[in-house]
């Protein structure tokens, strides 16, 4: 909402308040602003001039030489403008002046003729193209009215003015008007509002002879009123009116349209003017449209209606979409003689749904949607007629038609001052509270310790006691209320699960992994990229009905595509190495179609690529991480059938009966899908299970008191034998004295037959209660070898 300060001054005496203060205090009382803009910046020596003669340019067809009276002299100017004529008042930038956009005017010659200045267009004065009247867009700003020649235009045209852009919250549609903002200003500065005095001088004949009105659907139109104006003279509005509209961001069209817009800006009530002669039988019927009924709206579009769209119709057809847009047929034109000026109150919801349905949002519809006081209907139409009369744009027919069902009257709210103080933490007296409310034009009656607040109909947002609490708070001043801290005590803490999550991130950071964050929604095609078959359970997903696009249409059922995406982005950007993890939710529907909230399951996905990483770096990191969470004795079962992974380089991570997840090298096709020319390793871990088996408590184990004996063992086994099998036999037969067994070398090649490998283990023996002897260790060692030989056909190398 653009509010020119000069316009605001019509209603509140703010002459002595600097604009910065006005802006700041209004913000603090609840009218937030987007900023203050000066209408024209630092323009000087731009004065009012009158064109007294236009000469032809001797050397150029496209140029003319107007002689311009600027009060104390007549100057010659050369211009290419086409829209000027003798007698026009125009803004003249004199030699030495500077235009708002930085252009400096110098004396010059154009094709041999002296030019002592420049005639200015509205754009050159700093107006936006979208508010400049069509006739003046490509030419000079022609001023309508009488002006003192030579006067600085800032003064003459109220251009040394500021425009404040207010951000109006949806609960305050009444503030979408100059009057509404005047009320806020008066409440903020404790001033009074001077409302416009509305009176009509000459009313003739009677409206009943001109038009008849019938409202059929009162549920959608609470009040319908209007006046008739005859002898309409369509022309351009005077400059003061044009400029006010322009400053408020509205493009002037012609006097009648401008007046309806002016009143809409002033009071917030949209008005519509019909060419009365074009209404069949001079009849107006407010009714729901018939199914498939059609209308061509002002914008030239034919629109098909349904039974829920409210229309204004004449005896035969719809002539306007109520509260949205008029029809082309009844539009006023230069030839219009008589108009019917509509001022009505349409149902908010209906305007909103119709406007959405038709895809047509207008200034009027957006105002009706937000809600308008039905009691300004009459004031607004009278105000418009007053302006029509003042501008000599037509003659007002006596009386108005005003059909008003279910009149909205003031209501009351009971307010407990001690409740206000209790909620705000203030100690305001009843009188202080009453004074604040009176500034808002709320009448207050004291009833013992309570206040009865009478709410005027323009404040439909005030319904409950709490609404009054807010009014008191904002006018008293949020910043005046003393800051305190809540009394009482609670203890703050993370839950165990939150602790584990944070700990997880810390450990993974320590292991070199960066945390990533990716969207919860993905493309369904992302599952194709990781090779997931059509019938996989991962395809049962929660889908959005209105996604931003197909690529964000499915709630993810796996974090793997997101991880691949991120790794791939990094890879393509030539980041040489990436180690990353994401801890986030996947979404599993209970039913398809989804009819209840899905299961949100937390997953932990790790991914890596780079020269220095392989399967075992990732496995090592995962084991280290899980060990830190107290999850030991992990098993890794070869997993040959996961479609996203290399069948020979993939394992399920097993803990007891739980499968914690999958770890492995990514399948070549998947790598190709993501543009990788290198290997990628991913671990996908079910974090919910992890949370259940995490053990962060520790019990101390005494440090060894007796020395250990170390033995290495290299055995030759068949290729197919897994380390796990060998280790199991070693551990099983190591008895209580085998402390640990670590694979330290695998060798294939010379001296080893094809199809076989040499596996070398370092064994550590130790007893808790004594120093071991070689004999003891040899015995166990030999038995281990024997078992390996018997069970795996292993030979000592």
């Amino acid at each position, binding site marked *: 909402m653009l509010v020119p300060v000069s316009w605001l001054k019509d209603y509140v005496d703010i002459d002595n308040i600097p604009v910065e203060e006005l802006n700041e205090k209004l*913000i603090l009382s*609840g009218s937030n602003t987007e900023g203050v803009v000066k209408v024209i910046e630092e323009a000087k020596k731009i004065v009012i001039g009158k064109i007294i003669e236009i000469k032809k340019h001797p050397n150029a067809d496209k140029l003319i030489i107007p002689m311009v009276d600027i009060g104390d002299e007549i100057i010659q100017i050369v211009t290419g403008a086409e829209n000027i004529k003798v007698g026009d008042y125009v803004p003249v930038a004199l030699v030495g002046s500077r235009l708002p956009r930085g252009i400096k005017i110098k004396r010059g010659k154009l094709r041999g003729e002296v030019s002592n200045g420049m005639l200015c267009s509205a754009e050159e004065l700093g107006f936006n193209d979208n508010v400049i009247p069509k006739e003046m867009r490509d030419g000079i700003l022609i001023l309508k009215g009488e002006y003192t020649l030579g006067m600085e235009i800032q003064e003459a045209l109220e251009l040394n003015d500021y425009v404040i852009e207010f951000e109006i919250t*949806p609960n*305050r549609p009444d503030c979408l008007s100059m009057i509404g903002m005047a009320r806020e200003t008066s409440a903020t500065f404790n001033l009074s509002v001077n409302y416009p005095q509305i009176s009509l001088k000459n009313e003739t004949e009677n409206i009943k002879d001109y038009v008849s009105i019938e409202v059929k659907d009162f549920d959608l139109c609470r009040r319908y009123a209007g006046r008739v104006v005859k002898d309409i003279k369509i022309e351009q509005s005077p400059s003061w009116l044009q400029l006010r509209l322009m400053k408020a961001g509205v493009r002037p069209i012609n006097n009648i349209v401008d007046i309806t817009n002016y009143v809409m800006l002033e009071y917030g009530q949209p008005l519509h003017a019909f060419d009365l002669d074009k209404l069949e039988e001079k009849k107006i019927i407010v009714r729901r449209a018939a199914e498939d009924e059609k209308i061509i709206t002002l914008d030239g579009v034919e629109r098909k209606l349904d039974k829920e769209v409210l229309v204004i119709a004449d005896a035969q057809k719809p002539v306007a979409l109520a509260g949205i847009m008029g029809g082309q047929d009844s539009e006023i034109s230069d030839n219009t003689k008589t108009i019917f000026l509509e001022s009505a109150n349409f149902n908010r919801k209906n305007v909103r749904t119709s406007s*959405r349905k038709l895809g047509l949002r207008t200034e009027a519809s957006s105002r009706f949607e937000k809600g308008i006081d039905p009691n300004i209907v009459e004031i607004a139409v009278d105000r418009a007629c007053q302006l029509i009369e003042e501008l000599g744009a037509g003659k007002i027919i006596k009386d108005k038609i005003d059909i008003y069902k279910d009149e909205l009257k003031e209501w009351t709210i009971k307010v407990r001052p001690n409740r206000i103080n*209790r909620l*705000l*933490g*203030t100690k305001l007296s009843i009188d202080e509270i009453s004074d604040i409310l009176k500034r808002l034009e709320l009448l207050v009656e004291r009833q013992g310790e309570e206040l009865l607040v009478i709410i005027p109909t323009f404040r439909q947002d005030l319904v409950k006691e*709490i609404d009054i609490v*807010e009014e008191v*708070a904002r006018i008293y001043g*949020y*910043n005046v*209320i*003393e*800051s*305190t*801290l*809540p009394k*009482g005590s*609670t203890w*703050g*803490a*993370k*839950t165990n699960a*939150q602790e584990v999550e944070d700990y997880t991130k810390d450990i993974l*950071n320590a*292991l*070199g992994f*960066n*945390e*990533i*964050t990716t969207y*919860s*929604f993905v493309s369904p095609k992302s599952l194709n990229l990781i090779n997931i078959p059509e019938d996989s359970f991962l395809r049962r997903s*929660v889908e*959005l*009905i*209105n*996604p*931003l696009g197909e690529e*964000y249409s499915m709630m993810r059922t796996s974090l793997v595509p997101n991880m691949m995406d*991120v790794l791939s*982005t*990094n890879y393509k*950007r030539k*980041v040489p*190495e990436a*180690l*990353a*993890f994401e801890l986030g*939710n996947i*979404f599993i529907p209970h039913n398809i*179609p*989804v009819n*209840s*909230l*899905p299961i*949100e399951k937390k997953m932990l996905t790790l991914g890596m690529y780079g020269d220095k990483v392989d399967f075992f770096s990732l496995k090592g990191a995962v084991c280290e991480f899980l060990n830190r969470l107290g999850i030991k004795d992990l098993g890794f079962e070869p997993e040959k059938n996961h479609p996203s992974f290399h069948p020979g380089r993939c394992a399920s991570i097993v803990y007891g009966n739980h499968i914690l997840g999958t770890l492995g090298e990514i399948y070549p096709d998947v790598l190709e899908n993501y543009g990788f020319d290198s290997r990628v390793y991913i671990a996908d871990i079910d974090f919910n299970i992890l949370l259940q088996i995490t053990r962060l408590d520790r019990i101390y184990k005494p440090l060894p008191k007796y020395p250990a004996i170390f033995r290495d063992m290299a055995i030759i086994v068949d290729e197919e034998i897994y380390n796990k099998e060998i280790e199991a036999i070693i551990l099983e037969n190591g008895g209580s004295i085998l402390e640990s067994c670590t694979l330290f070398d695998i060798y294939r090649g010379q001296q080893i037959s094809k199809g076989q490998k040499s596996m070398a283990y370092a064994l550590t023996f130790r007893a808790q209660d004594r120093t071991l002897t070689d004999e003891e260790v040899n015995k166990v060692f030999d038995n281990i070898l024997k078992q390996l030989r018997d069970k795996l056909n292993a030979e000592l190398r």
Partner: protein
Amino acid sequence: MKEQLLQILEKVKNDIAAAEALNQLEQIRVKYLGKKGELTLLLREMGKLSKEMRPIIGKLANEVRDSIEKTLEESKAKIKEKEKKARLEREVIDVTISGNYRKIGHKHPLTQVLDEIKSIFIGMGYKIAEGPEVETVYYNFDALNAPKDHPSRDLSDTFYINKNILLRTQTSPVQVRTMQKAKPPIRIISPGRCFRSDEIDATHSPMFHQVEGLVVDENITFGDLKGTLDAFAKRLFGINTKTKFRPHYFPFTEPSGEVDVSCFKCGGNGCRMCKGSGWIEILGCGMVHPNVLKECGIDPEVYSGFAFGMGLDRITMLKYEIEDIRLFFENDMRFIDQF
């Protein structure tokens, strides 16, 4: 024999003086003091000496042995020192070459700022509440006093799964879930992912993060809300941070407000960050609307509360001067490595 002893001493000293390495010294020790060493062998002859001479020569022999041992030790120490120095010289490395230990990972910048916020509120007695990303219309809108025709409910603003299920547009549903489960006193913050139908650009993302807070107890006042958020802002942005409360409108709180903090980049003088105003808008807040309390089974006549919410992405962007929100979700390692 006396002469022989002195001769040996003389020879040993010459030998030691000529020695350059520890093993030469050892050879010298063996040569003279070892089992078959010259001195040892000589001393075996002691038995042949007269009774009178024995103590004299014995004394001399001990002196010679001590002297040899002492000289050996001294020489050993010297050579050791020399060898050490030589080794240190040999081992000079280019210390300007960069280290090669694997770097530790980094938390996502959003997590880092969230961690700060969490710890501030935990310190003020808050717990952390969580809720689902996929929510019901009831929890996201209805229970929060959002008017039935509020534009935020539109398909153009909110992602829907069906007419009753949506992606939460705020973390406020967590507040409702908390209030319905727990009895006051309640002090929670609810951080999490939120979704709104915004096209992706430098300042918009269809997924973003909020941190909301809720306090419900007897006698909670608007002053308490101010004090809490002022304390929070001072902790997060620095002790000199000032706060400014402006009235605003939210359906689920009343009175409602927005909070500006004095620009933590320029200290309030005006800079690019605060667009010259000296203030940065950071929070929305207000007293929990009685309708919301009632909906959650809390008597608004007995209890009152305040709620607040902030955009984690925005605060993180401001804090680190990140100009494009898309960087958060691209996850370029070179970006994450910076935090």
